[in-house]
């Protein structure tokens, strides 16, 4: 039943285009009755369906019902997959429509209705081209070649579609290859595979192949996967300058696209913003976010992406009050719905830092929003820790916020208790070179215990560590959200010292 219900969800997207006659309970066959029950959402389990069709007392294992269900698995897609008109500007429906034209063309060809087949194939070809469905275009071109080499013999048309067949076969392979590398790389990222940084040469063939394909082909998928790959590789290698070059090139290319232009522009824009923030170019980052209207992305389907980077840039630039004002626009429930729980956790971490800033008097000029003002540390720890399995990632921020929060609240005994844990944590999880910056900062925070929480002594004794910290790049995690230093450590250190002074 699950499979039928899963297929039925497709109907919800195309139902308005279909020509399904209304159910007629008296005259419909049992199969049609079952069909209408499923697409009407009237039955959700086998037991319900069996009882409705065969009367109460018959459960899902009733043999005639099982047979009927296996028939419906074939019948349901046939009833729903009809020749539908192309929806205006709707990519997904155009794709569906192109596929249905190709399917119907094949039905006509098998029945030797070649004129109808030609008409349908030409439509499938045209529709497929507009939505970059290379397989559909290739197969339609292939079938047209067969027609023009056979029953509708036409030499010039044959050569035209032969060329299209060849080109689309190449495009299909090119996109497939890029996608293969792209997801391979995503896998490496998810595994936090460090091979990326140490074994540069492993990725050179991928880079070369991608560059060659980008030079040869064009189109939304090529631009998306191709530049996405190059950016990811260079970000993961820590070469942000090169990544920026590709991100800017990708943005330019995305402007020329016809299909999925807006979506790809949005992806490429957020990639460039990410890279700029990694490069510490926060002013450029802000101006790029402000410029998104020029790119037609003012009404974005994911406004929180831009909001996140706007807040991040403002924090990094020391414009704390502006950043807090922006935080007022965040609805965490909506963030979780539109993005993910991890994304919402990032905003929670931001609120925590902003709360600390408020406590230290950095936000006196404005009235902070309730998320910041009514921040509760223990609730925050529970909410974020529940999401975090990774011992690095958000855990680092939790430790930092915890220590600063304890310092702000003058809970020095608890601070001392936590110090031992932090030191062990640094040794165990942050010993690798990638985390040198994180580890060093946590050690600097923990050193307050050694210097009796005297800010002047701490500043003096830890000056050397602070200089080292400033010289280090943030190379940990690189891509994912928790890797972000929401307030750069160089700025956070004086804030911590100020907390001790109060």
């Amino acid at each position, binding site marked *: 039943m699950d499979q039928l219900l899963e297929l039925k969800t497709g109907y919800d997207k195309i139902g308005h285009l279909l020509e399904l006659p209304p159910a007629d309970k008296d005259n419909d066959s049992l199969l049609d009755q079952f069909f209408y029950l499923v697409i009407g959402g009237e039955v959700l389990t086998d037991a319900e369906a069996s009882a409705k069709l065969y009367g109460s007392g018959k459960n899902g294992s009733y043999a005639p019902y099982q047979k009927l269900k296996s028939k419906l698995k074939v019948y349901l*897609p046939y009833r729903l997959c009809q020749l539908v008109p192309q929806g205006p500007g709707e990519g997904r429906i155009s794709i569906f429509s192109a596929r249905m034209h190709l399917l119907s063309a094949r039905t006509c060809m098998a029945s030797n209705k070649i004129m109808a087949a030609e008409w349908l194939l030409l439509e499938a070809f045209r529709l497929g081209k507009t939505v970059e469905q290379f397989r559909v275009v290739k197969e339609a071109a292939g079938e047209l070649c067969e027609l023009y080499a056979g029953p509708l013999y036409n030499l010039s048309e044959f050569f035209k579609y032969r060329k299209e067949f060849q080109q689309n076969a190449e495009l299909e*392979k090119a996109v497939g290859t890029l996608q293969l590398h792209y*997801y391979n790389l995503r896998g490496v990222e998810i595994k936090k595979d460090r091979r990326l940084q140490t074994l540069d040469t492993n990725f050179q063939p991928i880079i070369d192949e991608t560059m060659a394909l980008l030079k040869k082909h064009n189109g939304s998928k090529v631009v998306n996967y191709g530049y996405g790959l190059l950016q990811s590789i260079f970000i993961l290698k820590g070469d942000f300058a090169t990544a920026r070059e590709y991100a800017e090139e990708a943005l330019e290319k995305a402007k020329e696209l016809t299909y999925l232009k807006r979506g790809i522009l949005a992806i490429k824009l957020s990639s460039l913003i990410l890279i700029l923030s990694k490069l510490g170019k926060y002013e450029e980052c802000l101006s790029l976010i402000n410029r998104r209207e020029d790119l037609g992305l003012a009404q974005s389907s994911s406004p929180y992406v831009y909001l996140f980077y706007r807040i991040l840039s403002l924090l990094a630039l020391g414009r704390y009050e502006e950043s807090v004002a922006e935080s007022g626009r965040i609805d965490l429930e909506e963030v979780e719905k539109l993005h993910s729980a991890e994304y919402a956790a990032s905003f929670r971490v931001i609120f925590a830092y902003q709360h600390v800033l408020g406590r230290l008097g950095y936000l006196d000029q404005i009235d902070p929003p309730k998320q910041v003002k009514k921040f509760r540390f223990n609730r925050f720890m529970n909410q974020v820790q529940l999401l975090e399995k990774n011992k690095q990632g958000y855990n680092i921020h939790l430790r930092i916020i915890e220590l600063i929060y304890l310092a702000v609240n003058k809970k020095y005994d608890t601070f001392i208790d936590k110090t031992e844990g932090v030191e062990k944590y640094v040794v165990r999880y942050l010993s690798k070179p990638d985390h040198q910056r994180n580890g060093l900062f946590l050690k600097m925070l923990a050193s307050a215990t050694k210097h009796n929480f005297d800010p002047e002594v701490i500043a003096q004794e830890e000056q050397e560590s602070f200089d080292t910290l400033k010289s280090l790049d943030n190379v940990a995690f690189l891509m994912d959200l928790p890797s972000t230093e929401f307030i750069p450590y160089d700025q956070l250190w004086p804030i911590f010292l100020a907390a001790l002074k109060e």
Partner: protein
Amino acid sequence: MKVLQELFPHVNLLNVLQHMEDDCTPKYLKRIRQLFQRLRDASETNETEMVRLLYGDSRTSSHPPFQELLTKTSVAAIKAFVLPSARHTSSPSRRAMIQRCERAYALLYMTSERSTETRIKLWRQLVKSARQCHHIPLELECLQVLQAIYGYRSFDETLLEDTETKIRRCFDENSAITRCKMAAMDLRIASTEGTPYPRNIPAEEIISAIRQYDLYDIQYYGGEMLTQLSIHQQDWREALNYSGGALTFFRENFPKERQPLVHFLYNQVLIFTALLDFSQGWSRWKDLLRLCKRGKTSSATQLGKVIEVGIVLALRCGNAKTTSKLLLAIEDGGGVKLIPEREYGRWLTYLRSLALLNNDRPDVLEMIATQERRIQREGKKIVFRREDEQIMAIIECLQLLRGQSFRKAAVIVTTLRDSLPKRLSPDHPEYRLQLFLRLLVESGYANFHRAATLRKTSKILKRLRTTGPGITDDGIDTELIVYEHLWEILLLTLTEKAPRLPYLAN
């Protein structure tokens, strides 16, 4: 208009009206009814006639409301024709299975992109089904969806690696399919155009592809291309080998698929025709005819082609006994309906040739004459190709000689002589025909006297015997009855007496 003309016999008006996108006004409805009425009364009506009937005499076929009416009605007719008719069967044909997979894919594609357990299961099932029916492009697409799921949304390293391996395999198979299909198409075009075969045909790659991949498309297009190439090079052993290999593959893996079996059996009949092996060719032809009759979707033209190749086989092998069976097959298949009008001349040549072989069988001759009369009655203007005209002239000449009408035969021989070049070149595609015509002319110079003819033609006959009959790429050669055999028939008609005046002037 052509779409409507084609679909009109298969849909009814009510059904078409049900599928019209918008509600029709009474005036619009009236026009559609008129359109259908006209198609029923005169299906060959062209667009100009139709637009004048519907919108007045001053309109041309580009009249926008007429074009809109045509488009809307055509789409509705197509929808009515391709109405879903899924039949649940546990062993569907390959085409039905491809349709099932494609429809399930389209529905799944429309659904949201969450990677639920059921969804993953459905994608995996689709991969399996697509592989089962050798629909590699769809398998690749489904694998790419799974790759996106395993590589990102529900990360699973082992499954991701496994999917990647399968994707790489599909890439190779897809490339091989593209190569085979394109090569087969190029050969079809070259064969139809009569141009030399493209030099860059990747024959070696295709040979290795059909050895490596047991896949429908590769075996079909690769087998077609290699068989065609071997036939073109008159390498009959290789041609038999490739077509036989493909036949074995399809019989073992897709016994329900009619099209490839018909295709390769047709090729084999042609090859045995060229090899003059009647018994093998006839047994293949019987299988071919059985298959064609069994198929619900066989077109009359396809059946006509099959009977045509049977006639060519019988004529080439000089087997007159099967003529009545061939004529019965024509009769059963629908007679003249089997033959496209442009080929009436060709078929008349076949019938005359058959009549020549069956000279001593009045019942068969009567059947042939009936078919001939039908063709002549149906054909408004029967066109003969130049080669067919020559064959018809030769047959007429032989019939006249049989009837001892030597002077009339001499007139025909004179015409044929004038069409001959002065020097015969072995490289000429019609070299054997030219040699035979020379034999005929020499016989005329010998006043159709047997002994004199034998004496005068010995050298030309020797030259004829050094060559062998071939077949063209599409199998329909000018040499219907082998010229050596035709010569033997001619010798039997010659006289022992010398005439008082020569029949043929120098």
